[in-house]
């Protein structure tokens, strides 16, 4: 089984590398870029300068929060409402940040940089099949997404071109939940994972009609508490 052993070591090394993380999100980079162009066009229409739109993509770095903040601003809403909506939509990253804790290494600045690169998709592809988290995969995936998101925002803001005024017409809005469904697969091979997924989905579904956007996903994080009980 020498050949098998070599393949296995290769696969393991491959899995935890930044290249593996970058490869894993590459299929999504195109969809992210389309959303980025839309955001750039929308943000400039709402009164942001192209530079402000690009800086927002680099710092807030989450499509849903950016679209929400800019649309509130464009509709004449206040600064507080726009920032509050963005913070609520990004509140799930507090839970995702906790998920990074066991795997993150390095000094405080490095940890801040790693946390910065954690967005839904990069965080999602950073989990190895055995349930551990790989910092290398997160950084590789995060850099690809960062380049795609910021670059496409700048393009959309500079040209103001309504290339993709309606990403939904291309079915792109379904590509994101589809990715999370695919990524869910390895985590529901064991009973606790299935329980956490079922509770998480139920909590989110139950809260959608009552809670502001963003809150259902934050509340669903509590489903992970099924791991607390003694085995």
């Amino acid at each position, binding site marked *: 089984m020498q050949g098998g052993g070599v393949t296995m070591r290769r696969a393991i090394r491959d899995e935890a590398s930044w290249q593996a993380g970058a490869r894993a999100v590459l299929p999504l980079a195109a*969809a992210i870029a389309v959303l980025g162009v839309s955001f750039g066009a929308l943000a400039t229409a709402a009164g942001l*300068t192209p530079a*402000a739109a690009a*800086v*927002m993509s680099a*710092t*807030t770095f*989450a499509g849903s929060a950016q679209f929400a*903040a*800019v649309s509130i*601003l464009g509709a004449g809403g206040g600064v507080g409402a*726009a*920032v509050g909506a*963005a*913070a609520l939509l990004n509140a799930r*990253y*507090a839970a*995702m*940040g*906790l*998920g*990074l*804790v066991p795997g*993150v290494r*390095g000094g405080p600045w490095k*940890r*801040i940089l790693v*946390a*910065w690169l954690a967005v839904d998709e990069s965080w*999602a592809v950073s*989990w190895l099949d055995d*349930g551990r988290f790989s910092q290398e995969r997160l950084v590789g995936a995060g850099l690809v997404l960062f380049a795609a998101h910021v670059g496409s925002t700048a393009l959309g803001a500079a040209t103001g071109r309504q290339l993709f005024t309606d990403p*939904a*017409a291309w*079915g792109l*809005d*379904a*590509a994101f*939940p*589809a990715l999370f*469904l*695919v*990524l*869910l697969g390895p*985590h529901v091979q064991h009973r*606790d994972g*299935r329980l*956490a997924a079922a*509770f*998480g*989905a139920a909590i*989110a579904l139950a809260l*959608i009609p009552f809670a502001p*956007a963003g809150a259902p*996903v934050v509340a*669903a*994080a509590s*489903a*992970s508490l099924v*791991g607390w009980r003694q085995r």
Partner: protein
Amino acid sequence: MTRGWLVVILAGAATLAIKAAGPLLLGGRALPPRLLAVLRLLAPALFAALVVTQGFARGRGVTVDARAGGLLVAAAGAWLRAPAIAVLVGAAAVTAALRFFLQ
């Protein structure tokens, strides 16, 4: 300082503070096994919630629309262990086609 820049700076600062709090304050520390077990289950809990909210929410409503068709294709692809790119393109294409023909 325009309102736009103010929103950009405040939203960015709030997001970074939210993201970095856990890794900055707790990173590199040995965590008790029970807490580790909980943190590992964040992935399935949040993925399932993201599937539900991004697949079935429309504002404050829960609807089954063209996205559900795309998600069915994605579920089948995941079950068959198809490559991720094929699953994503298939889900988007089916959703776009359903939208086009059902409108």
